[in-house]
């Protein structure tokens, strides 16, 4: 049985950063990932990472932009920590070898990004997430004696002892199908978001909300689950992302009449208003008949100098060419708002601690909350790194003073039985996993999207609950042990359904419009009643609702205009 002081589940940016930080503290670390670490979804973060590092910029300004971007639902103590520690983290990454863009003096250079009052986004062309993640993986290879890597191990459940503490996890080795119990003194979840519960989505196929569901199932609270970001520039159909960096470099949004419609919605910041604002503007144009027949508006990148496109936006040139058949250097590309990011997640404090002792969460799986109702572009990479590191440090400290965790065989037996039951289901006895998954994605994109209302959300919840029942009997084809992706797909479906249910319940409950939650039946923000988080805890079959206060330090809520 593998036994570590700190066990990290998920090996994107948050997980890798947590593992490195814990190892630096001198404890034994294991990092588990259901895919090879460099396949993690952090590599899709194109635009960059925010930090107030330039002379004349300040962390207070970065913090205020983030608070305002969050529509005042972000916890200000956490936001202060993130923005204060950002410059040091950027320099740390630079020292590790990230090939950040330089200015003429050879210093770190920046670009502009949405919702920000200064150009404070550091970047590597438009492969920033990829570049940082590959550099962190270089460090994991360097410190392979200190950090054991379990690549292609799928976690099915967390292990909780009799005292209610998290003491490990059960994983399936994808390569040979063996179920293994991992024992640990501290466990950090860094498994990312749940975008695959929506279709289309910018998220990778692996983003199935595993960690959120697993933590919820063992009693951790979830928070802000109604806050799902729709990114303003995604390709129709497949949902691929076009970086906000394009607008940061000066690209325009145009409706079918060729109007720069953002003038009407955000006259000051135009295309660089917050994402929720821009997505609503686009959806309004489309809904009111000023979009293109394919339900899109246009992003015009041709106004950006060609040399600059090649240098800074190469990835989206490829995306346009390979996936839309459009040369973005020559013609506008059709885009629409699309599912992109899970602002909510497992409720944590500023050290990544959840409500379950010994269990931590960091990155998109967590809700600290630094993003509140709406995440600013280029704050997600920062979130993963700052709170990944802090979780790693605190988890290591916690592990130091403790005896080896006591895990029980029962949890392993349970999970083995669960997998065996799925594999044993008779073919044709129910629906196929892929059918349920598709219906779930379409349902969520219809009812829990840019504009929402009570009737739609309730209908969505009803469908999700029916799908949960159907998932109990869905069948798979693969009965083997080696690389049985079929059985993993069935387990992921269960995770996604828990996530979707939580989102619908919270979205129905929040009867106001704030950040990404826009209720057409309650179109105003209501600070008097709703300046608070919705927390969800598993109770019997469904989520039980409670509230927690938004932490305020120095910024009182104001009207939000861009």
């Amino acid at each position, binding site marked *: 049985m593998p036994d570590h002081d700190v066990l990290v589940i998920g090996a994107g940016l948050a997980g890798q950063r947590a593992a490195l930080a814990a190892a630096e503290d001198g404890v034994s670390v294991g990092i588990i990932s259901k*895919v*090879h670490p*460099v*396949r*993690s*979804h952090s*590599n*899709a973060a194109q635009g960059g990472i925010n930090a107030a590092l330039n002379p004349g910029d300040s962390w207070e300004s970065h913090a205020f932009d983030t608070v305002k971007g969050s529509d005042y639902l972000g916890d200000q103590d956490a936001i202060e920590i993130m923005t204060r520690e950002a410059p040091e983290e950027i*320099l740390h990454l*630079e*020292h*590790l*070898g990230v*090939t950040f*863009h*330089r*200015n*003429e*003096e*050879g*210093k770190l*250079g920046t670009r502009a990004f949405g919702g920000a009052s200064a150009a404070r986004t550091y970047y*590597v*062309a438009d*492969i920033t997430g*990829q*570049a940082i993640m*590959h*550099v962190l993986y*270089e*460090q994991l*290879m360097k410190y392979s004696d200190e950090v054991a890597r379990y*690549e292609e191990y799928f976690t099915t459940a967390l292990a909780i002892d009799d005292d209610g503490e998290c003491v490990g996890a059960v994983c399936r080795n994808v390569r040979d199908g063996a179920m293994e119990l991992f024992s640990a003194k501290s466990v950090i979840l860094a498994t990312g978001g749940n975008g695959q519960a929506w279709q289309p989505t910018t998220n*990778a*196929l*692996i983003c199935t909300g595993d960690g959120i569901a697993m933590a919820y199932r063992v009693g951790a609270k979830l928070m802000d689950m109604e806050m799902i970001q729709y990114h303003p520039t995604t390709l129709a159909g*497949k949902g691929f*992302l076009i970086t906000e960096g394009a607008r940061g470099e000066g690209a325009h949004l145009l409706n079918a009449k060729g109007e720069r419609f953002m003038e009407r919605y955000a006259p000051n910041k135009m295309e660089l208003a917050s994402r929720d604002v821009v997505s609503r503007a686009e959806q309004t144009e489309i809904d009111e008949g000023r979009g293109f027949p394919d339900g899109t508006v246009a992003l015009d990148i041709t106004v950006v100098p*060609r*040399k600059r496109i*090649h*240098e800074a936006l*190469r*990835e989206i*040139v*490829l*995306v346009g*060419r*390979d996936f839309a058949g459009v040369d973005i*250097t020559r013609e506008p590309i059709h885009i629409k708002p699309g599912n992109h990011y899970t602002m909510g997640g497992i409720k944590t404090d500023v050290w990544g601690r959840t409500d379950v002792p010994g269990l931590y969460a960091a990155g998109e799986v967590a809700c600290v909350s630094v993003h509140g109702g709406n995440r600013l572009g280029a704050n997600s990479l920062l979130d993963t790194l700052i709170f990944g590191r802090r979780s790693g440090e605190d988890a290591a400290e916690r592990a130091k003073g403790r005896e080896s965790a006591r895990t029980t065989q029962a949890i392993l037996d349970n999970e083995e039985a669960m997998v065996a039951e799925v594999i044993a289901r008779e073919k044709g006895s129910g629906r*196929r996993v*892929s059918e349920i998954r598709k219906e779930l994605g379409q349902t969520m994109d219809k009812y829990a999207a840019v504009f929402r209302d009570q009737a739609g959300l309730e209908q969505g919840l009803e469908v999700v609950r029916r799908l949960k029942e159907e998932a109990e009997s869905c069948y798979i*084809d*693969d009965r*083997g042990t*080696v*690389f*049985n992706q*079929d059985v993993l*797909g069935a387990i992921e479906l269960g995770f996604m359904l828990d996530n979707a249910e939580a989102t619908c319940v919270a979205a129905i409950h929040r009867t106001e419009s704030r950040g990404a939650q826009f209720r057409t039946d309650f179109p105003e923000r209501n600070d008097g009643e709703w300046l608070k988080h919705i927390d969800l805890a598993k109770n019997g079959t469904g989520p039980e609702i409670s509230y927690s206060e938004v932490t305020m330090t120095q910024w009182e809520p104001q009207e939000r205009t861009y």
Partner: protein
Amino acid sequence: MAEYALKVRRFQPESGEGPYWETFDVDLDPTLSVLDGLLQAKDRDDGSLSVRCSCRAAICGSCGVRINGQSALACKTQIGEAMEHANRNNGERAGGARTNGSQSEPIVVEPMGNMPVIKDLVTDMEATHWKKIRRVTPWLLPEGDPPEREYLVPPESMIDITQSMACIQCGACVSACLSMEADPDFIGPAALAKAYRFVGDPRDAETTERLHDLANDPHGIYDCTHCFSCIDACPKGVAPMDQIMRLRRAAGAEGIDDANNGHRHEDAFASIIEKKGTLDEAELLQETYAPGVKGKLMPRPSAIKGLVESIPTAVRGIGTGKMRSLPKLIPGIHPKLPGDSQEQVRRIYAHTEEHSIELNLYIKGEEAEGDAPVEEGAAVPERAVGPEPDEGEAPTGDTGPEADTSKGPQGTEHGQADPGPPESGRPGPGGAA
């Protein structure tokens, strides 16, 4: 919507059977990808069909496969184009005439090459690809403690190595590598491209050691046969072979006289063509081992050994007809080019010396753009005269000027005379003489 047939090479390790072919009929828009086709087959027909995949957008590097024999990402290959390609392949096999009228050929999908197969389209990347990556010490080795702020480095140096950083570790180049087929121990295109990311990084303090290591390893940079397969296969435009050539140029500029005679061979190759316009193969061997008059008057012990060991190669050359005419056998009687062709070759040499720049993807864009040339000023300037960090401000870990000159992204004289066309054969603005 259109119908396609995907002929997949399957392998189910638990069945006790060998690999077999299975054809899946799928039904999707021609602009969707081969991966979309595979996933449709998996969703509708057989969930046991295994393929690694995640992002669907050519960024995670999971779905490397071979499609109609060509190594590629399944998500980045449009299914309509793959079918056209399959039909074209078949047409060529049938001697130009299509044998089966309008009927479509199946799209052939196989696991990547040069790697063991685990199941269906899933290969063992760890046993090959990642082991090779770890071979090149794939992490930054700066000197001393980091500076208080960032390392000061020339902006173009970061743009230069960003082409290597664009690698997503999909293994398509490894799958396509012909040298690795012949020598499974070849470090290979992906790992060497990764190595350039450190060699070209001014923050790395072990450049010389890295270059010595890679030049002297018999499976290192001189093991590449310059076949361009990796450049064709790479879905991200990393052009691994170009990065290998940069490593060679850097090793040459560093004066590394490698145990494989790789550098001397390149030198000989380049200087013979400069002198004679075409390659005098009889002269190539002796110039490689014993260059010039000095080399012949005072041959190094290794030169004699090398020449003797090359005799079988020379004999094979005669046997295969490569050196069939008398003049080709006698060194020095190699015919020169007619008319002023020789002069033109010299002018090409002179031009490349003057314009010793390399244009990577982040500067010139994806394709050669005839109608919109990149202006000269946009090209990578000489790194050796690039901005030098102010001494007072220079961070402790920064490399000194000595190391700096050896790391230019631009070609050296040897490099530009390299027999292969620069930048994957597309006419770059700098090279279009």
